[in-house]
């Protein structure tokens, strides 16, 4: 009989234990997991942009040495810092952007006439065609005359972008390369929107297209790829369509 008493007591305290652990105790649903988002180039989902590394330059055609802007490094740094802040917010901290500025202006081997195009409505593709190969050969190749051991080491897994402040006309962005006239970054006329203009060209390097029609200039989006490029960086944004293209 004693064993029945023990059994009953076990049942009683078992029931109490069950009450303590199960009755009125919230069950926490464990399916509420976050989904990891992978950001990538707008036109290439295989190319991750979770880490972006910018190599920035001030490029001056040979015949424009007298026009070298003395505060170029500080200006370029300020604009890139603004771009970093914008990028961090717009890409929701899913993409890390870092940069380094080549410490000296790069004096081109050619005169500006050989780099520029006269119609800058489509940016300055000529400059892109000539300036970028020259920088790559002179700076990044080991036998280049401007090659430096302390510059040009690109972090592993980072998406590498060249940003060129050009002592000439126009601005243009393409695969891995953004070029912008120094005037856009330093002229008081463009001061409120200079950072937005740089950011606009930068986002071309991530595969985002223009959001305005040519030659009319009718904007098709208010974001930085359209109307927003002429809006202060603090006021402009990347549209949902652009973010979706980037994997967000």
């Amino acid at each position, binding site marked *: 009989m004693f064993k029945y008493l023990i059994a009953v007591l076990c049942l009683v305290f078992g029931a109490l234990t069950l009450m*303590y652990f199960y009755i*009125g105790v919230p069950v926490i649903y464990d399916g509420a997991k976050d989904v990891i988002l992978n950001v990538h180039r707008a036109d290439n989902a295989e190319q991750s942009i979770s880490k972006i590394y910018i190599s920035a330059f001030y490029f001056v055609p040979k015949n424009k040495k007298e026009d070298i802007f003395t505060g170029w490094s500080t200006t370029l740094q300020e604009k890139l810092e603004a771009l970093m802040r914008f990028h961090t*917010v717009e890409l*929701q901290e899913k993409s890390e952007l870092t940069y380094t500025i080549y410490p000296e202006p790069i004096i081109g081997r050619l005169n500006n006439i050989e780099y520029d195009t006269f119609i800058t409505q489509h940016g300055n593709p000529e400059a892109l065609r000539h300036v970028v190969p020259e920088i790559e050969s002179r700076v990044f190749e080991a036998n280049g005359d401007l090659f430096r051991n302390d510059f040009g080491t690109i972090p592993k897994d980072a998406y590498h972008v060249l940003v060129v402040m050009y002592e000439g006309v126009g601005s243009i962005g393409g695969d891995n390369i953004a070029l912008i006239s120094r005037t856009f970054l330093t002229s008081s006329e463009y001061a409120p929107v200079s950072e937005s203009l740089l950011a606009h060209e930068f986002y071309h390097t991530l595969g985002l297209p223009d959001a305005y029609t040519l030659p009319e200039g009718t904007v098709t989006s*208010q974001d930085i790829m359209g109307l927003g490029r002429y809006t202060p960086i*603090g006021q402009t944004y990347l549209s949902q369509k652009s973010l979706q293209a980037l994997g967000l």
Partner: protein
Amino acid sequence: MYTLIKITDSPLRTRFLLYFIILTTAPVLVLGAVAISLIDASHRRDVSALELQLINQKIEETEKFLERTLGVLEVVVGYDQKVDIELTQQNFFLDGLLSENDAFEEVSFASVDSAAYGKETAKKSKLYKNPELFTVALLPKFIEAKEGKTYISEVYYTLKGPFVTMSAPVRNRNGIIVEVLSAEVSLQEVVQSINAGSIGARGGIVLADNNGRLIAHREPIFASGAKIGNIFSIKRVLAGEKVDALQPQDRYESLFYKEPVVGAGKKMPDLGWAFLAEWPLSDADAVINGVRNQVLILTLVSILGVLFFAPLVASRLTKPINALKSGAEEIEQGHFDKEVSIATKDELGELGLAFNRMAKGLKRLEELKNEFVYIAAHELRAPVTAIKGYVSLLVEGRAKGGVTLEAAEFIDRIDRANEGLVHLVNDLLEVARSDAGKIEIAVQPVSLGAVVKDVVATMRILAEQKKITFQVQGEIADLHVLADPDKLKEILTNLISNAIKYTLGAGALAIKYELDQGMVITHIEDTGVGISFEAQKKLFEKFYRVKAAGTEEVNGTGLGLFIVKQLVQKMGGKIWFVSQEGKGSTFSFSLPRVS
């Protein structure tokens, strides 16, 4: 069934205890569980109501903000206004809008006139002067307003926080659209409203836009504009699922609080924004956990109380029954005078009274029986004595004419049967006297040796007939005991006679003595059939006879040992035995020694 049998075989007190524990703790447990469940259910409904109330309040505030802001843009101008408003008036009006409305960051007019269709005609910004004018004909803000509708864009996120673009048609008093007025509207007021919303000490609201991007939350875990639409709870709200803090999935590990929360959410009807209220369970359930613990402690204390009092109650319940049991055992021993005392006035009390009445009745019956036995034995004694006398005469051949050999054999049988009858009558009279307390014992110093010698002389012949060696060990000539000499002789005769009768064939019989603390112990030791364990328990009962193989022919009434025990006890001694079946027995009795 096995269990039931085992339980019913258990003592009543234990069963009472078991049933009492089961019947008292089960309701306490059920009551505790039901109480906790009901309190929990009520609490959940309260939490749900609180969260949904907060959400509805925030939705209402947000809707009012948007309605109010959009209303500012719905401008009506004079009757005669046909197309573009004069530029100076536009600029003046836009300056006024910016200065009067904190939420407006940038405002602009766009023309609907075919000559400058979709072109911005005037624009003012709080951030910079002379903003560039664009053709916005392809933008939804122009297209919608030009069609006469008001427009609110999707939320976009800048370094200054979340914004929407709003636009509305500017009409003259005839309802003709003359311009499109648009504004970039900061949602800071909405953000502040969300941040101010709280439930309890730590609960708050999350607001996400229709694309699942974070507009506002008081805990700065994610940046404004962060993609949170993939977070399970936000996804459910955006999908239009019922999230009311009552569903199983509504208690989850929050990515905002990094701890379990209870969540409820609603989707704003027009814009599809998701409002999600989250309340950390550590805060939301703080009070209910206290109540729950109190109920659990109360339940535990109740059960401990039951376990403490159950044995007392069980003892109290079974006490009258145990008293009746003891009373029954006394009656079994022939003690009819002992009354059962049950103090209760219930059925058990009545049973006790009835039991006592029954005991009195039994006592009376016993007295009547004893009286009857005594009278019957007494009345039988004279005829059987007479029969014995006449049979003796016949046996001795003194009857006239003598008897034939056949008649002598019959007479011998009659004599032996009558001898048994005489013996039975004597025993019955002895028992009747004993029961009636009428045995007269006259104790006096008696020489034990003389009595033993006398009895042995009588019994030796019988022993020798069965080839049983008879031995008296020890010097007893000087031993004197306090006893009635006749009764002592009867005792010895009975015990030795039994030893001889129950020794089948040759054997040994010994009488030994022992002195122990003023008593003389006499042992009668035989090598007879012995007594089985079962028979040992009843050996001194009236009319009980040992049945062992080979003892069927042994004569006896079953009263001898009963009488012996009575006599020994009345003379101040004790009697006992040690026996092993098949090996023999030793009967011992003690009597006070005379020093």
